[in-house]
């Protein structure tokens, strides 16, 4: 995501770095926008990072 600069045009702030925030951030960067992903805890990942497997295929969640 590169280093932050001030006054970026075309920047987007995403509040919350769970799976939803991360996916939105990935898509927006691919679409050509600079993203600030703001997360209140020390790491992104949200609740999905706490899950073991996912329904219904029981794939690994991490």
């Amino acid at each position: 995501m590169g280093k932050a600069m001030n006054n970026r045009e075309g920047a987007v702030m995403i509040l919350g770095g769970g799976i939803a925030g991360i996916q939105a951030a990935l898509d927006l960067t691919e679409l050509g926008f600079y993203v600030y992903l703001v997360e209140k805890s020390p790491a992104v990942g949200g609740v999905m990072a706490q899950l073991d497997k996912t329904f219904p295929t029981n794939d690994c969640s991490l």
Partner: protein
Amino acid sequence: MLTNADFLALEGTAGNFTATINLRPRYIDADACTACGLCTQYCPKHHVDPYNEGLAITRPIHIDYAQAVPATYYIDPSSCLFLQHETCQICVPVCQSHAINFKQQPEERKLHVGAVILSPGFGKIDPKTLAKFSYGKHPDVVTAFEFERMTTASGPFQGEVKCFSDGRHPKRMAFIQCVGSRDIGCNNGYCSSVCCMYAIKEALVTKEHDPEVDITIYYMDIRTQGKDFDAARERAEAIGIKFVRAKVADVTPWENRLQLTYATLDGQHKFEPFDLVVLSVGLESPKDAQKIADITKIGLNKYDFCATNGFNPLQTSQEGIVVAGAFQGPKDIPESVTQSSAAASLTAATLKKVRGKGVELKTYPEEQKVAEDDEARIGVFVCHCGINISSVVDVAAVANYAGDMKNVTYYTENLYSCSQDAQEVIKKKIKEHKLNRVVIAACSPRTHEPLFQETLRDAGLNRNLFEMVNIRDQCSWVHAGEPELATVKSKDLVRMAVSKARHIQALPEQTVPVTPKALVVGAGVAGMTAALNLAEQGFASVLIEKGESIGGNLKNLHHTLAGDEVQSHLKTLVDKVKQSKNIDVICNAELVQTAGFIGNFASVIASGSGKDKTEQTVDHGVIIVATGGREHRPDKYLLGKSKKVVTQQELEKQLAGKAKTRAPGSIVMIQCAGSRGDDLNYCSKVCCNHALKNILKVKEINPDSQIIVLYRDMRTYGFAEDAYTEARKMGVVFIPYEVDRKPEVTQKGAKVQVRFFDSIMQEEVTMSPDLVALSVGIVPDDTDTLSKLLKLPVTANKFFLEAHVKLRPVELSVSGVYVCGLAHGPKPVDETIVQAQAAAAKAAIPLVKGYVKVDPIVSSVQQDKCIGCGLCVSLCPYGAIVMQKVDGKRKAETVSASCKACGICAAHCPTFAISMGGFTNEQLISQIEAFGATGDR
């Protein structure tokens, strides 16, 4: 990425916001921290670990989990001895990289942004609500979140399920559904939409750990309405997990066990003893929802989730601010992922003018030259995948085995090879040991090869100097009962891969330009929304519709469950599509042929009929499949035979009409008519809501109407639960029926008679209502033709199969082709709109970039060996080899961008002049030799 950050203020308007963020100190310099973990070992203070739901103890200075991003430790000030009492500071000298800095201060930052996406997730149910189940009083009552950590291999108990009270393994376990959801008592009248799924998942995982454990799930309705979710419930039932329809009153300690009191449908109270009780707790609005609303001035609904409208489901009440994920309403991972992509495309549309400004492209270090005759220095990394691999395969033995092989310079094991820290290890080892080939034995290259190839590029290696061994999906998972043979198989596969790796070569990267236009197939609400969104992002599309006019199924709907009028919205949408300069609509049209590949498709579209039939070719870069679906009309319950039997859609039409008797005095509704194991094997997700929508309308027109609903599970998930509650308050009677005791509808003179077993009164009932309304399912419109034409996989139920059900819900396995709407699976209008916006986001990515990369594994012709026979040209199914005159002689040449890397040409070339990147004869033969060479290394 700004972590440990609080959102303080937001000023300005769409296109020009200023957000104020407070960065709380980590007390550790992120750039210096190597995540070695020494500090945690030395820290003397205990700290309850919230990442593990309080089930484990860590230290104030720690990292939540090994794969955490950023991979930097932090100090939790709430329990740090120095930050609380100014003593200790043991960690400071311990840290070898001098990363600990107690002088760090909070830092306020202003961010200038054009738009905001809110994805704060969800909150947890207040423990007070859980008290009646003895939660907090007895250690063996846990929440599903806590239980999830317990079953996790990398969790505090390495996945072992046990009772907290005395460490014994539970023999009998219960899951209680709807804890803190569908519960007016705690003001959460809605359904949390995920608990049924996670309870079934956790029950299945528990059974995997210990097949002997007896598990009962107490539920009101099992809401597995998602695509192919019912199948998992059936799987759970098949392996002996019990489902009991009952309301649990309380859980009380009883000797060293727990006693669960519940009431069944027939009014009986029963008691059952259990060793462990798991509470399937719901999702609440985030704790700081009100604060976020105050700062951003967005509106909230009555449950404090973000308020939105069904036709624009992600738009908040403030322009420039959209919402995604559970804050919009409780939802699962694929729905969240879909909403995020949709939020991205909405934002991209609003900020179209400033796209690309201020973004730096990722750069890679210069590629290290690996010449053909350089001696191979192979690094082998064998993955545990938590316990996914290591519980079956002896990972250490496989790694050691690889270590003894010729050319293997370095070998090791990884707990999770895909984790961020493992990537750093791989990069470091490539440099340290001058590795020029990397072999990773882990999961499937189909999912993880790109990730590792990226790591190779970051380390300055050509990404093709890589080989993957699949010892999970195709070994540990399928040979769970034969650990020794699975280990032998893993060794053999690693040997074959290393043998191939000795011969692999660096391949050049190529790119091809993209035609900036989309082809959207199907002009229902999905296709129209996708094309409009692309238009708003600045891209042209050709929207083809097989019918006479655009609009699709929306034409049959009149109002939504939320009470919104449909037709006026449809008209606005249709007008917008017709007026858009970026959308070319062709009706009465069908796709006849498509050639090409992502970025460069050429499709033949036939339109008109008979003599007026014309064909045109359209060049485009991406395809969005939105072919839709329709009502399934089962040949059952006298549908089509009696005028008194209608589908919900027909009833809706009747209700929207003007006839005085449009809302009959008595109606019996039959849910799942033809669905869930009948004609259709699946749940169509929308029928329960459709029934309720009609019920409320009937009651609005004719409050005296008597309505009975015969159902299997009422699946009014999310906020639709409110409508279910309202209907019951109005006196509508809901009676469940069992699949082996379906209601019967017969003709009796001019009347229809419905016979069913009343499970509440425990007796057979016969009645003659004025009308029988069937909630029939949804079937996809013809998916076979498109599936063959574009080589797209479909599910057993004939819906298109997405590339990954969780993480790539709108992409199909063919690059450049995306899916949305009913063609993907049954879903209501709001979810269809979101999915269409998400498909537009994904489709816009190659269009924005303007180029796509060609996989370097394509064929290439060594022209000095080519004798110009032309056999390859005649065999290539993709027209990707052409004959050319080179110095007056016929020579074959590959069109790289069209080549699909199938290798037919290489397999048939009589002079071995054709070589496949990454799959050369030499490489494959060496792999085959290694297959036979069981004794050698």
